[in-house]
């Protein structure tokens, strides 16, 4: 099982590394940008899954980090510096602080409260971004310069941007793996399985959830920073509850509580919305919503759960360690 998982990792990484070589020959260059979007979403959903999949606390307001990350980067790139790193740092730290405050106010409550408090806080940003002239109100912030990542190298080329997002995703994935396997990750799983018992063992479960919520917000901030750089644009749509909904559904499709699941879910949701927006632009939200309901009703543990079930149907049960 372990070697198949390793082979799968190597194959996926090779394919992703070689993919841009086929652009303009095998498929249109548009798909390179689409894949970059998948990577950005994957970073965000990975952060969401560290929270939701490992502690069971579902945030229906993750768009607040995506949007805030994008706006912070957009403002800094436009008005302060064209370098990417300070903007990224500001987005990540800013979203971490935001997550600390929102987490402080909403984690004391029950699970269901947490869902709608995160929603209510995200709505605050949606309304604010739509009405605050300083950040362009409903028109958004346009004309953001392409950020510089190394002397002489900016992100205007879509292949460069593709690899850059892939590197950030790989780093985010590696960090998430470290978190999950650390003693801290064990506490998180303990919270999901039985919060009370974990408390009785002497762990500060509220503190742990608050910390993972901050980490999760930081992932969202990084994704937002990349999104603003990609589009050279930040708009209130980034804060729309549909974005928070897409994050949950992608995590559901991929399977929560695994690290590969979110990446897979990001791929499915981006490709699906792209397909739907060219064929059925008018009805995409309806289809995403119906898919959402379908996932909840029929495959509560997502694609990874399906794969696991399929595998355990073939191999001896119990041996399927998940990545």
């Amino acid at each position: 099982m372990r070697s198949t998982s390793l082979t799968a990792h190597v194959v996926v990484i090779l394919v992703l590394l070689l993919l841009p070589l086929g652009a303009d020959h095998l498929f249109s260059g548009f798909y390179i940008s689409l894949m970059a979007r998948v990577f950005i979403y994957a970073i965000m959903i990975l952060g969401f899954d560290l929270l939701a999949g490992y502690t069971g606390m579902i945030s229906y307001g993750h768009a607040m980090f995506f949007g805030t990350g994008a706006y912070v980067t957009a403002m800094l790139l436009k008005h302060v510096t064209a370098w990417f790193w300070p903007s990224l740092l500001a987005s990540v730290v800013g979203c971490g602080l935001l997550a600390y405050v929102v987490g402080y106010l909403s984690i004391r409550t029950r699970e269901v409260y947490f869902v709608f408090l995160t929603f209510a806080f995200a709505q605050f940003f949606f309304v604010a971004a739509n009405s605050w002239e300083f950040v362009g109100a409903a028109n958004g912030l346009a004309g953001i310069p392409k950020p510089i990542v190394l002397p002489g190298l900016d992100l205007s080329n879509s292949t460069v941007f593709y690899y850059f997002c892939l590197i950030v995703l790989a780093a985010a994935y590696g960090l998430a793996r470290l978190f999950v396997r650390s003693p801290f990750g064990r506490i998180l799983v303990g919270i999901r399985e039985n919060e009370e018992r974990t408390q009785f063992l002497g762990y500060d479960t509220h503190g742990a959830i608050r910390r993972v919520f901050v980490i999760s917000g930081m992932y969202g901030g990084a994704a937002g920073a990349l999104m603003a750089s990609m589009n050279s644009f930040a708009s209130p749509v980034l804060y729309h509850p549909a974005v928070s909904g897409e994050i949950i559904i992608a995590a559901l499709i991929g399977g929560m509580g695994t690290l590969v699941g979110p990446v897979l879910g990001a791929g499915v949701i981006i490709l699906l919305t792209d397909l739907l927006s060219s064929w059925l632009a008018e009805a995409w939200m309806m289809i995403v919503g119906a898919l959402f309901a379908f996932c909840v009703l029929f495959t509560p543990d997502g694609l990874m759960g399906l794969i696991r079930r399929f595998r355990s149907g073939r191999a001896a049960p119990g041996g399927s360690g998940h990545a």
Partner: protein
Amino acid sequence: MDLSTFLASLLYGVTIGSALILISSGLSLTFGVMGVLNFAHGGLCMLGAYLGYSLMAWTGSFWLAMIAAPLIIAVVGVLMESFTIRPLYGLNPLYQLLLTVGLSMVLANAVLLIWGPDQFSIELPEYFQGYVNLAGIYYPRFRLFVLLFSTLISVLLWYGIAKTRWGIVIRAGIHDIETVSAFGINIHRVFTAVFAVGAGLAALAGVIIGAMRAINPEMDLELLTSALIVVVIGGLGSFKGAVIGSLVLGLLEAFGVQYFPGLAKFTVWGAMILVLIFRPEGLVGAE
């Protein structure tokens, strides 16, 4: 700030608050009895508003819109409850909540497909147009009607919950649904009824708000957010909490518009944060 402006704001605040009671009490009771926090509640409210608009436009009868739209939405509520939410009872409540998130997206998109992105207003019959003179304050006639009508419905709702046999079942259900079931009461019927009434009330509020302000495809989010903030302020799962939270929110909105025009939209979040810091269980929370 002179007295008559103050009184006009007060009156307007109570009017908005009374309309909000219709939305938030359904949301709160559905949660209290069934444990389902319905994120599609704003969508039902919006669908009710649009249905009311179309009924009014086709038939010209305001009262038909006020009666038929809520009944249709109550039926939609029954269908939603029986076919999508019911299979999930007994699972983690988050599943039901996520399901309603999906349904809210379906409803929002359906409205956009059927009625398009434009803003509409429900046309009022002549006797509701114009102003009344209330001891020197010129108050729109329809707003006065909204205040009286919503108060009447709220009192009926309170009577239903506090004094009738059904109300006893509902109050017992909020307390402990398993015991209610053990007494031989069919809790599935109770669930369906509560959900349908909540949906119908939301639609009624939708028609009222559509006639008082305007209807647009984003109103579901606004109304849902308001209703959620109401239940945070008042306390989730109680009718009294919904009433108090609604009035607080209505007054904040009315006075905010009058005295801090730029920040009016955000005062409600300020109130929500204060409640979360000092009384996380809500103003009337039982825990």
